């Protein structure tokens, strides 16, 4: 069964080793490209001949299957833990309630990586697969679990019960608590995964999603970007999945994750089906992504005061499963750094000086230019302080019909918002905060920030004190997505008084001006 190469390699390897010792540190990688294929083929042959089998699987009606424990363990963390537990010469594993066709299919899948099944059998097979945590099959089913359920990490370690990935889109499935020990293979996979070429924007997008821990999306995106991971099944053949690929959408303002917020079910990110279609169904991905993102540079924007966001790979499934839900419903991850904060690029002293100037009679507009503070921010602050500006920056900035459009925009976004979508989202204090965070150079960022704040406010029923230190996380990124969505639909009716170039997405600003 052993193909020739292996024998050829050996002397060669010996030679190389020698060189190494003579010459020093140089090492050589000997690689047989067919090694994996060979291994798989051999396994298949072994199981067919029932050679070296060391366990018997007994299903209903006394149908027995012989198999290799090592293969079972390799394909299922569940088996791995069980079999590690029970070291025996030859063990029997009884599966009361499992039909022979189910086991046959699973075994074939485990040995060859694929199996043909009839459609009618799929649900049952998947169920058993889930129970046995068959890699690839199990991972895909994992997402269907409901919030109350537990989730498993593949691996041999003892079960850990975790709230499962809830998707508001997926129908509640009565999934039993199960476990998810960390996969022994994870490092490898993540390494492979890290190599996946992703442009910074995508990465960023991923990171932000990670931040929100919107894992289903993440997984999907990753799936699209990772041709690498061969350990994941590409798809379930028969699944009527919408395979449409999800190109990373990058909006003009560079805020990448907005779209993925996928607030509405009809978005491409329809978790469940996609899940099935995606390769990155394995939990490893979370891990690898996270760690990856931890280093991923944000290149496209400068964040003056933004410390690099930390995506700790650490507490994986536990939290993020919750947050998956969060991604779908308005929810504020408390530890999250507000997105809009990134835009603040002036210092407190800038604004203070600007205010002082206004107090002394300078126009808000002038002051804002002088100190590089967003004029709106300044104006709002000044107004709040009760200072009359010499030449009140016209609320004139008010572009009128916008307010009217406001609800619309929100509605668009608010599809799954719990709040009343038509109620104004903007709270002045929020805007203020947001405005404070606006960059000097940009209406655009400022607007964006406001949009975010507005969204945050919308999602966040309890109002946060407007004056709280900027570090306090308030805006959940998920929500900016809403806003972004909206704003996309809105158009540039805004001419910034400041002469700043204003991006199309501006409804928040409009609103603010209306309501002030």
């Amino acid at each position, binding site marked *: 069964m052993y193909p020739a190469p292996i024998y050829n390699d050996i002397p060669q390897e010996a030679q190389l080793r020698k060189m190494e010792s003579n010459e020093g540190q140089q090492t050589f990688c000997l690689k047989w490209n067919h090694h994996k294929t060979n291994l798989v083929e051999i396994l298949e042959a072994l199981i067919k001949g029932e050679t070296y089998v060391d366990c*018997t699987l*007994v299903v*209903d*009606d*006394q149908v027995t299957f012989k198999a290799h424990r090592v293969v079972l363990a390799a394909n299922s*963390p*569940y088996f791995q*833990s*069980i079999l590690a*537990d*029970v070291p*025996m010469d030859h*063990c*029997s*594993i*009884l*599966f*009361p*309630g*499992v039909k022979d066709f189910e086991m046959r299919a699973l075994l074939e899948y485990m040995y060859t990586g694929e199996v043909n099944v009839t459609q009618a059998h799929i649900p049952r097979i998947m169920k*058993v697969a889930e*129970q*046995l*945590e068959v890699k690839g099959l199990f991972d895909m089913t994992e997402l269907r679990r409901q919030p109350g359920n537990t989730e*498993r990490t593949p691996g041999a370690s*003892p*079960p850990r019960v975790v709230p499962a990935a809830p998707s508001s889109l997926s129908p509640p499935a009565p999934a*039993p*608590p*199960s*476990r*998810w*020990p960390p996969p022994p293979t994870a490092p490898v996979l993540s390494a492979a995964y890290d190599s996946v070429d992703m442009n910074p924007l995508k990465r960023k997008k991923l990171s932000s999603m990670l931040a929100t821990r919107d894992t289903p999306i993440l997984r999907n995106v990753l799936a699209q970007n990772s041709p690498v991971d061969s350990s994941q099944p590409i798809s379930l053949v028969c699944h009527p999945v919408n395979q449409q690929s999800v190109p990373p959408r990058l909006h003009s303002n560079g805020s990448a994750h907005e779209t993925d917020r996928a607030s509405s079910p009809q978005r491409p990110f329809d978790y469940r089906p996609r899940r099935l279609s995606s390769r990155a169904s394995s939990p490893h991905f979370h891990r690898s992504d996270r760690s990856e993102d931890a280093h991923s540079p944000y290149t496209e924007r400068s964040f003056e005061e933004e410390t690099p966001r930390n995506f700790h790979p650490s507490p994986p499934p536990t939290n993020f499963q919750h947050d998956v839900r969060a991604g779908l419903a308005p929810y504020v991850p408390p530890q999250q750094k507000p997105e809009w904060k990134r835009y603040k690029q002036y210092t407190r002293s800038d604004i203070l000086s600007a205010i002082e100037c206004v107090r002394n009679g300078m126009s808000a507009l002038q002051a804002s230019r002088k100190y590089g503070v967003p004029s709106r921010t300044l104006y709002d602050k000044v107004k709040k302080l009760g200072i009359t500006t010499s030449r009140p920056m016209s609320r004139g900035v008010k572009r009128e019909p916008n307010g009217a459009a406001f609800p619309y925009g929100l509605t668009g976004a608010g599809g799954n918002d719990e709040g009343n979508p038509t109620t104004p989202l903007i709270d002045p204090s929020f805007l203020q905060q947001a405005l404070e965070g606006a960059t000097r150079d940009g209406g655009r960022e400022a607007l964006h920030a406001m949009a975010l704040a507005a969204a945050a406010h919308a999602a966040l029923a309890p109002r946060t004190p407007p004056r709280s230190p900027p570090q306090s996380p308030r805006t959940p990124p998920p929500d900016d997505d809403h806003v972004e969505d909206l704003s996309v639909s809105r158009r540039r009716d805004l001419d910034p008084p400041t002469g700043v170039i204003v991006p199309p997405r501006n409804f928040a600003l409009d609103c603010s001006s209306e309501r002030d």
Partner: protein
Amino acid sequence: MGDQQFFLKWNDFQTNMVTSFRHLRDEKSFTDVTLACEGQTCKAHKMVLSACSPYFKSLLEENPSKHPIIILKDVSYLHLQAILEFMYAGEVNVSQEQLPAFLKTAARLKVKGLAEPPPQMPSIKREG
């Protein structure tokens, strides 16, 4: 004849048996079957299982293996533990909301004392 019989009785026999079994289980001594569900396993004694459940009895009889692993479908690990506890100790605490599901599981596994005579076994076809 004068061959008189004496009746020897150890009053604590049952208690002793119960505590001993429990000890054995706690120590995992002589365990010879592994029950697995929901990715978790627990070890038990075939003898106890057989004694307490005709379902396990037939299952184990049909599959004479030194140390079989029984992977139970649709059984909650929590319930399995409770059932084992019941089998070993004769009593167990189950919360009220768990009770119906627990009894259902017990019925499926035909646990004596919990599942009364004809338990319906939906997906389990094994009959002793």
